[in-house]
């Protein structure tokens, strides 16, 4: 018994003097391992509580993950845990001086966070893109038009593209050419789209005022743009007025351009 304690004391003294670095390094590795495990566990339950599993349900990424016996939430939390362990290990290696604090480890330490963020962005992009495709497809399901099927795909690949761009940018890959392409695409969407939806947008802007302030409401008799009738419906885009079995559907921007006459008898 006494001998054992003496042996332990000798070991401790050796560890704390000549091999202090090794001791600290292994401490760091153990702490990193525990911390990584805890973070992975915590993230897993946090994401599950936030309802992420239901949200990603049905996306391609989730299905692939499922087939490989894991899930999106598990992947993300494990990745985060792994990142912490990896950072801890590199730090420990440096402290222990096992590997000369050379260029390689220096670069690796700088590179690791970027790699982590890139992986996260890639996963997020894949899930978001798939999810957006599902949502848009669901919204457009009632529209029986073959061409409309292209829209969910466009949305999906746009999100993939942007995610890929961000991920590659994180890794330091030259993305200038891809950026130019993105700029051209964004210009097309916003400028051409804005031009195409000009009337709708101005109607919606006027509609917000009409809906919030209700200068006239359902049941009022009004004259808008020469059409006299009883207001049947006011929504964000149009006002419907009706008289003698004829219903006029007027864009709200017309209301603002020409003003309204309320008929009070």
């Amino acid at each position: 018994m006494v001998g054992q304690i003496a042996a332990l004391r000798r070991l401790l003294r050796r560890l704390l003097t000549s091999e202090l670095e090794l001791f600290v390094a292994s401490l760091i590795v153990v702490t990193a391992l525990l911390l990584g495990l805890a973070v992975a566990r915590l993230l897993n339950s946090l994401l599950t509580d936030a309802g992420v599993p239901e949200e990603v349900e049905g996306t391609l990424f989730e299905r692939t993950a499922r087939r490989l016996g894991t899930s999106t939430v598990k992947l993300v939390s494990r990745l985060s845990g792994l990142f912490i362990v990896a950072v801890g290990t590199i730090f420990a290696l440096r402290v222990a001086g096992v590997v000369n604090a050379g260029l390689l480890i220096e670069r690796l330490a700088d590179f690791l966070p970027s790699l982590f963020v890139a992986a996260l962005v890639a996963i997020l992009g894949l899930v978001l893109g798939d999810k957006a495709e599902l949502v848009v497809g669901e919204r457009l399901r009632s529209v029986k038009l073959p061409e409309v099927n292209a829209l969910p795909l466009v949305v999906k690949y746009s999100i993939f593209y942007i995610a890929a761009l961000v991920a590659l940018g994180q890794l330091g890959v030259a993305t200038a050419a891809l950026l130019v392409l993105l700029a051209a695409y964004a210009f097309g969407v916003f400028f051409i789209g804005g031009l195409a939806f000009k009337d709708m947008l101005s109607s919606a802007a006027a509609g917000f005022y009409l809906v919030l302030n209700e200068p006239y409401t359902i049941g009022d008799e009004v004259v808008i743009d020469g059409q006299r009738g009883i207001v049947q419906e006011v929504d964000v885009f149009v006002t419907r007025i009706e008289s003698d079995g004829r219903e006029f559907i007027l864009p709200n921007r017309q209301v603002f351009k020409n003003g309204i006459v309320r008929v009070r008898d």
Partner: protein
Amino acid sequence: MSDLRDLVGEMTDGVEAVLLFSPSGSYYERVVDADQPVVVVSGENTVDAEHYVELPLEFSDVAQRIRFGLEGALENGVIEEGDAVLCAAKTFAEDIDSLVRVRAGDFVRSGVYELFADSRAEASVIRDVLEVAIELGKKGQKGKPVGALFVVGDAGKVMNKSRPLSYNPFEKSHVHVGDPIVNVMLKEFSRLDGAFIISDSGKIVSAYRYLEPSAEGVDIPKGLGARHMAGGAITRDTNAVAIVLSESDGLVRAFSGGELVLEIDPEDY
């Protein structure tokens, strides 16, 4: 055994069309190749049927369901007046378990299909209002039975044929029937007197309205009170539909064109 088969066979003789009520995919596959047109009547066209009648409300009464399906099929021109029609529906089980043979046109058209399909208001709005009325009838207001009157559609005209009894609690609010909060609001406001007015798209325009239609030529069953009379009469004067929850007998009734078209007991749902 063969007698039994004959009995069932007799039902299928000379049938001009088949109506399937909420069939499963495999059931539909088995029937679809028949010589007669097959009409699917259900809440959603999950089997991609060629002839389809949307069932907006799961009528618990099979007779009511069949009536709705028949009127829908008649309206869509799949069957004609006087055709013998075989209906397959669920009565007790989760799957189709009953066969009914009817002659389309043997009964007076109640207009229950037109109530949903041809009203000014959208079918989903009418369904939502019916559901609110049914729920109100079931639970009442704090346990006490309440009455309520909803006028759906043609809101502009209805507003001009009514006057406010008091300040309108729905002024400048943008709630639509079917929003989750609305059930609570309507329940609270149902203790107010007067009618709720709901637009074609489901916006609740006003509560507390006193309807002033001319009640001339309104034909509603005797014994119903002033609320039903007002509801029936406004649908004659305008293109609206009235949905009335009776305070005394607890039934939900729908009026269209001044006539009673639908009567349901909330307790059945």
